[in-house]
């Protein structure tokens, strides 16, 4: 068994959630699937970590949460981005870009 690593890179889950929610309000499962789809299966999100992160982000004031019905009329907790959340996403994106490009440069130099 030599499965490729599908763990979300440490410390980036928050950013991925914020980015996903910046398009539209979504429930937990929706977020998980969206991350998987867009990353083309590179990242798989573990529900325990995801729901914990959602609770934490809501407490931090970056997300709002509301119970409403899904398309197939199941009750679900929908999360949406607050204004503070948008700002946080910008900060994290900028930070990530900076670090990722640094790593990319380093790797290129090695090669």
């Amino acid at each position, binding site marked *: 068994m030599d499965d490729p690593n599908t763990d979300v890179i440490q410390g980036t889950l928050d950013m991925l959630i914020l980015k996903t929610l910046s398009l539209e309000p979504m*429930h*937990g*499962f*929706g977020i*998980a*699937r969206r991350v998987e789809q867009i990353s083309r299966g590179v990242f798989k999100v*573990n*529900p*325990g*970590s995801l*729901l*914990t992160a959602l*609770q*934490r982000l*809501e*407490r*931090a*004031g970056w997300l709002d949460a509301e119970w409403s019905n*899904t398309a*197939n009329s*199941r*009750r*679900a*907790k929908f999360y949406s981005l607050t204004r*503070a959340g948008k700002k946080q996403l910008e900060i994290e994106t900028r930070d990530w870009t900076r670090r990722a490009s640094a790593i990319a440069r380093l790797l290129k130099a090695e090669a």
Partner: protein
Amino acid sequence: MSLWRQFTRGLRSLTHSSQADRDVADEVNQYFEEVKAELMSKGLSEQDAKRAARLESGSMAQVRDQVRSDGWENALTSFAADLRFAMRQLIKHKSFAATAILTLALGIGANTAIFTVVQSILLAPLSYKDADRIIALNTRWTDTGHQSTRVTGPDAEDVRARARSLEAVSLYSGGQMGVQLRDHAVFTVVTGVDPDFAHVFGLQPIAGRLFNEADAHRAVLVSEQFARDNFGGSQAGLGQTIHIENEAVQIAGILPEGFDFPAKTQVWEALPERPESRSRTAFNYRAVGRLRSDVSLAVARAELNGISRRLEAAYPADNRKKQLTLVLLQQAMTGNARPTLLLLSGAVALILLIACVNVTHLQLVRSMERQRELAIRAALGSSRWQLMRPVVAESLLISIAGGLFGIVMAVPAVHALVAIAPKELPRAAEIHLNLWVLAFTLALSLLATVVSSLLPAYRATQVDPSEALKQDSSRGMTQHKATVLRNGLVVAEVAATFVLAASAGLLLRTMATLIARDMGYQTAQMLVVDADAPAHTMEDAQRVVRQYDILFAQLAALPGVEHVAGIMGLPTGEHGSNGYYKVKDSPRAAAGHESQADFSVASPGYFQKMSIPIKRGRDFASQDSYDNQFVAVISASLARQSFGDSDPIGRQIQCGLDSDNWMTVIGVVGDVRQESPAAKPGPTLYMPMAQHPFFATEIHIALRTQVKPLVLMNAVQQKVLETNPQIALHFTTMDAMLGSSIATERFRAALVSSFAGIGLLLAMLGVYGTISYTVAQQRFEIGVRMAFGAEKDRILRMILRHAVRLACFGVALGLASSLFLARLIAGMLVGVRPLDPLSLSTAALLLLLTAIVAALAPARRATRVEPMLALRAE
């Protein structure tokens, strides 16, 4: 915003925990439903979809737990679980818990009690309106640094007129006085105050009105209590006429209960705005003022400095080097109590330290017993904090319980404190437990938690699982570091106790010195009557003196009375006076030196009655009347001070008590200690009552009795009232007066000694604990030694030597601290030096003995170790 949200959400999930649980469960449920639905839409059966979802995402229960364990409130919940666990542990180890809790209760209780007093007296603001702007005016001499709480009338008047930073300045003076009512007279505190007084304190009468300038010497304000006691109520008292010093005054207003400034005043007599004493060298007044709301104390002080300099320029002789200063009234009122209270705070802080050390020690012993438990926890991967948590939780419970018991103990302690406190203790009536004190106690408990669990908790994290699990503690192979730590704690404890015991020794020696002191007069079997006869004119006063003469003869005839005499300026009494005097044809006086003495006005027979020896010349006699040559008797130190070796009899002396008449010295008597046993015997100038009638109306009548002095009270009272019903009386004994003159010293000595006693008890517990533990740990070793033929005596000596060594280290450390702390206590000592070898060596001996006694029981236990049993134990 986000912090607030953290807090409220956390709180909501704590208080509505089932709701929060349901929310999470619903959300997790829905997630899994979605997963299942997705899989089923790909064609899986419901069963297979369920299994696949589980494979992919784990169990729902796991996910729920993970989500629910996030957030601060869950740390709290798990700490609560720790507390429950700690509670069970404490219940299981009852003797450990009880010892620790009681020890801390003792320490916290003592601190709570003393802090109650400190808070009520030093910290709580005075109960007057805007009390932080009320100041007291003082006089200070810049050359000597001497400071007086009194001011002269004209100086204070100038401050009132010129100081812009003061809104109002009020002068007052007074003291215990007789007040004549319609059918009786009472002794009470009467203070003459000017119309600004009410402004300074923001007073509002509960009935009637305040003074104005026209009321001077015509009106008084009285306290609600005075009106109730003497007239039955405020309204009944209003408008009544009473007599003070033979002046008829009318009660114009009633002041509310609780206001009794200064010094428990009950009657405030109206004085004119312009002070009647016009001398700039007679310090006849005290003064208070009110700062303007926009002015700081520093600015006001600076302004007063300027005014003082201008006054010095204007009156170069009278105001030389004289500076008017101000302090907050609260400081002025409580300043004298401060050193005593700080001493007591220091003493109880040491007690708490000792108590904490004991608890730390108990904790350490306990944490060693559960090293295995900790080791297993560590081996299973507990974090440092998780290892420390049970220790901290236990400490917290112990401290909180100790704090609660401490408060319970503090309540009676505060009552006892107030009961034995010296009368001069300011604001004693305001002392009570309050929220500040409770907050202090809570903080103290938390501090005790931290202090007493710091070391044990740290040690808990240092457990090396592999070592700890291998090591068998009953084999006597304890870690060396642990032993050093425990010994260090005992040394610290002994040192702190030594400091307490040594201070107690010094204060007790001071007391012993004071009690044993020769006062220069006889104090036993002496009834003292504080008598104040009203007199306003010279004729009044002379009549009173004649009445007193007759009265003394009548009182002397009472059965059980040996001698009777009258005196203004009885030692330790209230009515003394003092000042400068001059000697005619004296080279010293010519050189501009002025000499000071206490002034007393006495009746013939006073010296004999008090057993004050007449060394030369004669006593006053009936021929020394107002119309004859004025005479004086001087004390031996005055004779030495002003006449050296030459004969003072027949020389002329003058003082400013009431007249400038030259008085002929007719006798020399022995010295007395005037203020209290702590005072040095000093120069005193005695004058006959007949020649100074104005100072002979408010006197002490002293009766030497053959029976118990107070037995005669009724008979004496009857005789006095027969002679003059307007004389106000107050009875006491010389011994009681003497006792109250050293009340502060006694208070300090009694409290510090009891604290030292508590300290010794705790130190004994500490030594007992550590030696017992050592012995228990060394059972195996002792068994081996005995198996190889060591004698019991040797074992006993080995254990005792250990205890004595610890005590010696402690005493040495304590001695070093005492050397450092000695100067703090020096001001409170009389007749002993701060490094008094007797006190220090007694304290050292006491601690060594304590250590030996405490170690004796465990040491004997060690000698009874049966080698076979000890070796077979495992």
